């Protein structure tokens, strides 16, 4: 039986781990290579690096982090943030990333998703959707949550699936950093709309939120940052908790 995945996410800036509260106020929580190794030894099903300021700053630090991590961690490594082109994707994959997560470029230029999934296979193309509720619908935001594209998130999810995305990483902007739980309604609606796996993100404050993301939100995988890297919970604790709730996990 296919297991639900738990994915710790490390927000990386200038080669160091940080986690934003609603994408601002950054705290330093250590070395990404060591953190990733702790996570993979602790049973993380994948590791995700998000290079949060990559759109604006020098990207070379992330390549170095990916290179070092991929020599130590033998679980899948996803890298996102600031990816603009097929060449950027090529570089990250060559450094040892297994998947890339594309956000802004996928909205501005859907051809990047089309071309890269053709070139490298959909299995390594994750499209990240940052969505914020506006009335009855959700709108897609780009540039690390700064710009509203006005695009309907559900329609976008379907369209990007057709363009060749292998997975969707769905983040609720309203919930990110709040620790009050995933936007279950959003997760459920997108997951029901597409036939590719959905990774739920944004808002995890406790282990029950992870359970809800899978059972109510129908996500295939749950991503969380702060509950893991400030030592509030270990990945193993999270897995044991999910297991106790009858959710299939790799233990």
């Amino acid at each position, binding site marked *: *039986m*296919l*297991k*639900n*995945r738990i994915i710790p996410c490390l927000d990386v800036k200038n080669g160091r781990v940080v986690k934003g509260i609603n994408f601002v106020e950054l705290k330093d929580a250590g070395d990404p290579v060591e953190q990733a190794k702790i996570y*993979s030894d602790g049973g993380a*099903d994948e590791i995700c690096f998000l290079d949060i300021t990559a759109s604006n700053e020098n990207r070379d630090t992330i390549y170095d982090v990916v290179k070092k991590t*991929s*020599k130590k961690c*033998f*679980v*899948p490594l996803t890298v996102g943030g600031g990816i603009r082109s097929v060449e950027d994707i090529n570089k990250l*994959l*060559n*450094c*040892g*990333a*297994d998947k890339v997560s594309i956000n802004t470029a996928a909205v501005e230029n859907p051809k990047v998703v089309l071309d890269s999934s*053709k*070139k*490298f*296979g*959909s*299995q*390594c193309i994750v499209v990240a959707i940052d969505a914020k509720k506006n009335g009855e619908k959700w709108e897609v935001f780009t540039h690390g949550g700064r710009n509203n594209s006005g695009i309907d998130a559900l329609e976008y999810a379907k369209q990007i699936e057709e363009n060749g995305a*292998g*997975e969707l990483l769905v983040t609720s902007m309203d919930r990110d950093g709040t620790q009050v739980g995933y936007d279950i309604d959003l997760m459920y609606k997108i997951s029901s709309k597409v*036939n*590719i*796996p959905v990774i739920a993100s944004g808002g995890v404050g406790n282990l029950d939120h992870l359970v809800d993301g899978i059972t109510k939100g129908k996500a*295939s*995988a749950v991503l969380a940052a702060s509950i893991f890297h400030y030592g509030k919970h270990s990945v193993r604790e999270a897995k044991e908790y999910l297991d106790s709730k009858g959710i299939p996990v*790799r233990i």
Partner: protein
Amino acid sequence: MKVTIVDYNSGNISSVINSFNEVAKDKVNIEVTSDLNKIKSSDKVVLPGQGSFKSCVYALNKINGLSDALNEFAITHKKPLLGICVGLQMFADVGYEETETKGLGWISGKVSKIDNQNGKYKLPHIGWNQINIVKDSKIFKDIENNSHMYFVHSYEFVPNDKKIISATTDYSSNIVCSVEKENIFGTQFHPEKSDKSGLKIIDNFINL
């Protein structure tokens, strides 16, 4: 001992290289190349593969003499070869991803899309699934039945001769996830991304 990972522009092979280097340490020489003579003089060959069946077959055929060199290595000289993911799928006679494409024809059978049962099962099949070992395979030494392996694929290998199947995994149906036919080994899952169990499979292959 020289193990060659075939580099034929089949997508991202960094993780395969990293994992083999991790296991080999300094004891075994890991070479990454498409040089025909180097492949022929290897003790073991690893055939990775990412992307579609069609794109991998095309990439393989683009390198003059490569498929002949692999044939000579695996079929004529019967030296150990491990196919990973689409590398395994290419053992088949034919694949149906994108368009009908001829495979290497080493293990009679076809590669077709996993039946998602009208959307009941999401595709790609991504994540950790347990393997059901149905036959002793040399690469499964010290691997427990029901071990978790990392999968990412939408197509499955359906061999005609079921006796070559060494493990299956349950997703929509019993998907063939490992084969062993004499000196030819293949895994649909990614041992290079399957943590300690995966590294053990790589170790077993290196130590054949």
